[in-house]
């Protein structure tokens, strides 16, 4: 006599729980890797050519923005150059 077909009960054997654990571990790796590849909210703005004027050829400052530190740096550089010429 042929034996009747029997299925494995995924609930009674806790097979579902094993599958959950395995899928969690795979998902966790993917999740953490995805978090590590974060992208900046805004791309760094490129300096438009218009701001590189003849007077300030080295100035790296977005158009329309006030850049006091940049001005200070350039003023200090100019001062240094003057002192170097005098000495």
């Amino acid at each position, binding site marked *: 006599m042929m034996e009747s077909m029997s299925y494995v009960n995924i*609930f009674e054997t*806790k097979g*579902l*729980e094993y599958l*959950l*654990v395995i899928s*969690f571990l795979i*998902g*966790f790796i993917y*999740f*953490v890797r*995805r*978090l590590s*590849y*974060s*992208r*900046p*909210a805004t791309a760094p703005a490129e300096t438009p050519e218009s701001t590189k004027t003849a007077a300030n050829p080295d100035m790296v400052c977005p158009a329309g923005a006030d850049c006091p530190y940049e001005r200070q740096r350039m003023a200090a550089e100019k001062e240094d150059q003057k002192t170097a010429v005098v000495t």
Partner: protein
Amino acid sequence: MTTRAEIMSEMGAFLRFLRSEMRPKGKLFTPFNIISLPIMLAGAVLVVIRFAKGLGAVTNLSQETPWGFWIGFDVVTGVAFAGGAYVITFMVYIMKAEKYHPIVRATVLNGLLAYMFYAGALMLDLGRPWNIINPIIGNSFGYNSILFLVAWHFMLYMFAEFIEFSPVVAEWLGLRRLRKILAGLTLGTVIFGVTLSTLHQSGLGALFLLAKSKIHPLWYTEFLPILFLVSSVFAGLSMIIFEGTISHKVFANQIDPKRHGSFDEIVLGLGKGATVAMFLYFFFKVLIFVHGKHWSYIGDPWFWWYMVEVIGFVLIPCMLFARAVTTQNVSLVKIASIATLIGIILNRLNVSIIAFNWTSANPYYPSVAEIVITLMVIFTEIWVFRWVVNRMPVLREAPFWVNEQQESERKAA
């Protein structure tokens, strides 16, 4: 040689300094003060009534429901929110993640005050509050009792947090030698504190293991201690984000402009930690649901309430945090942290109040007096936090001599 007159003069100067520090700084009539002061006064009156006439005079507690809003919110939820202190001190002092150093002091102060006020609010809830000393002096306690563990841990952790914070007090008072000694104790205290925290955060969950027949099966699980511990990690991190954001606005004048920029980076880092912990927590929740074979509850009103907590305030904030971290969106991290805090309140109240005694014909609702006293505790904590931050170097830079001291220690090492 120090003469008696010199000692007296020093003492006089010290007392004058303390007296000047006791004076209020800033405006008295601010919107926060106008709202909080009447509530604190009303709460103080209710506390007097509670101690004079007993618990029944101000609470809706009964023999059937002896633990109410004060335990569920003040203690169980408040301690989870204070979890940020052990997470951050572990990150900074053990893992050497120096990025988070600027927020250590404020976080430890927040944790210390949370334990002092919320765990201190236990006194209100004890029918015989003078018996609170029993576990400490060894009178009528059980070694196997979880409450015994929690009582000792709360007390020891408060000491540990005070030692972690004590260098700040020494800097405020200008006690250079004492500051050096206290700073030397920090690492050992942090290791001790983190050990205590992991045990009592899970211990709070273990308290509810005794009430298997009272808690709804969707919330009762033998893994409650693990769930409480994991959720305390992201509860604490979310609280730091929330509290730090408010502190950066309110105490903006105390913070070095250079540190304003780094705060955004810190918030994103905290959000990343929170999302990883929430991912793990969500997985535990799903696994426990499957393990407990809770299919039969699908469609039940309790099941939908459970879904609100797990999907609405765990999975969605987790995804918001993840999205915020990948897109470097600081505002989204802040929104996710608020949703997470609501989720933690919901979870702790579900376990301790809402799904507790769920079959009872007389469900418990907190009285207005219980809520007013809880608000009084919260507002008093905020007042003390503000008082300390306005006087001690919590957010602002430490005095110049601290850098000299640290430099000489580095050279000696």
